[in-house]
């Protein structure tokens, strides 16, 4: 399934719209998704963990990661808090909390394999896939190295090979996806000597966790970390002390990562659909205003010209009547003068109209602009 979907991914596949439209949401509505049915996960019982770091060693060997600087047998590593890095998919940290009586508490950390992974939602080449086997896997063959997945991950799990010049990869736990496909357990689960890690259907794991909490309410707090955090994770945790004291953030919220950006992404096609209409409308209105202004202007000019022509004619008559007997040259001069005055008046009129035109409306426009682009 992962493979067939993968093939869809190129635009070539997207062009075969029929197949896509034909896909229906599993749930009754398009709003609610429950994840792959019967998809497996891992339950980490923090109370049972003894901090032996066997899981770290197993992870290192099954994933063929580079050898560590300090041996996995060396427990002094636990003296400082560590995180996953490009050479380490999983780390065990030791916590001493007051509510836990200052006894050492060991917590394993690795990719939680979210039901709705933030990394997958963030990746612009679709390099991450949530598989039906529960694992969130990464395809380095398409990765551009933008590291947005690392920004997005609420658990700060993905790491990057900053020291590689040409082929840097994002590195993170794969839930041993290749081993799962072979029917084997993840390396860490297989090797755990105290059954602090249990692999199984997520539904079953939730029941097991609840059962343990119910049976030993004095050893466990009544919370399953990962049940709902950011839409839930395939890894689940139960512990005897509050999780916030064990390096797990409790303020992540319940909203699955894809839902956080759904609103913004949903606005994109609406902007594309409406902006051209709105902007063309504004353009058409401003053009029309210009046109009307031009028409009014030329009308005014025509009026002015007509008026001045009448004046000129009247004056001409007067001149003619008064100086009937004067020479023709004198008449011609008077006519010329009158016409010149008319032309001048006309020019002034036009210039005045233009000035008023240019000064008036634009003063307000920059203000109205933001309100129109806002929304």
């Amino acid at each position, binding site marked *: 399934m992962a493979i067939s979907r993968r093939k869809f991914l190129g635009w070539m596949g997207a062009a075969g719209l029929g197949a896509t439209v034909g896909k229906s949401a599993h749930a009754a509505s398009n709003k609610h998704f429950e994840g792959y049915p019967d998809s497996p996960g891992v339950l980490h019982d923090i109370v049972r963990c003894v901090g032996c770091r066997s899981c770290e060693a197993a992870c290192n060997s099954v994933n063929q990661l580079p050898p560590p600087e300090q041996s996995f047998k060396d427990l002094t590593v636990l003296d400082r808090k560590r995180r996953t890095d490009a050479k380490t998919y999983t780390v065990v940290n030791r916590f001493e909390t007051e509510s836990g009586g200052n006894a050492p508490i060991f917590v394993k950390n690795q990719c939680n394999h979210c039901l709705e992974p933030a990394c*997958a939602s963030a990746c612009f080449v679709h390099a991450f896939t949530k598989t039906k086997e529960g694992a969130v896997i990464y395809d380095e063959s398409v990765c551009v190295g933008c590291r947005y997945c690392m920004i997005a991950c609420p658990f700060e799990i993905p790491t990057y090979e900053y020291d590689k010049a040409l082929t840097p990869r994002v590195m993170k736990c794969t839930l041993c996806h290749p081993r799962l496909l072979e029917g084997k357990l993840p390396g860490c689960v297989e090797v755990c000597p105290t059954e602090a890690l249990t692999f199984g259907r997520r539904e079953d794991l939730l029941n097991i966790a609840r059962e343990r909490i119910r049976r030993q309410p004095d050893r466990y707090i009544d919370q399953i970390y990962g049940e709902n955090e950011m839409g839930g994770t395939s890894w689940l945790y139960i512990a005897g002390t509050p999780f916030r004291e064990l390096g797990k953030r409790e303020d992540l919220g319940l909203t699955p990562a894809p839902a956080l950006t759904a609103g913004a992404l949903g606005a994109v*096609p609406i902007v594309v659909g409406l902006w051209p209409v709105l902007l063309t409308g504004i353009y058409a209105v401003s053009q029309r205003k210009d046109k009307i202004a031009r028409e009014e202007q030329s009308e005014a000019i025509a009026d002015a010209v007509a008026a001045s022509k009448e004046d000129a004619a009247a004056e001409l008559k007067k001149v003619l009547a008064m100086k009937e007997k004067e020479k023709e040259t004198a008449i011609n001069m008077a006519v010329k003068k009158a016409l010149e005055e008319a032309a001048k008046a006309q020019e002034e009129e036009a210039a005045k109209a233009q000035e008023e035109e240019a000064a008036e409306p634009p003063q307000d426009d920059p203000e109205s602009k933001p309100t129109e682009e806002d929304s």
Partner: protein
Amino acid sequence: MDGNIFTLQDFMFFTKAITYLVIVAALIAFPAFWLFLTDRDE
């Protein structure tokens, strides 16, 4: 199982792919329609 979508992530992946195709078509269609709308003006 192949025909079904189980996660919001996959649902958005498919629906957004279609939306993007719609957007591209719309951007081409807008100027064309505007020309059709106004080519008898004046």
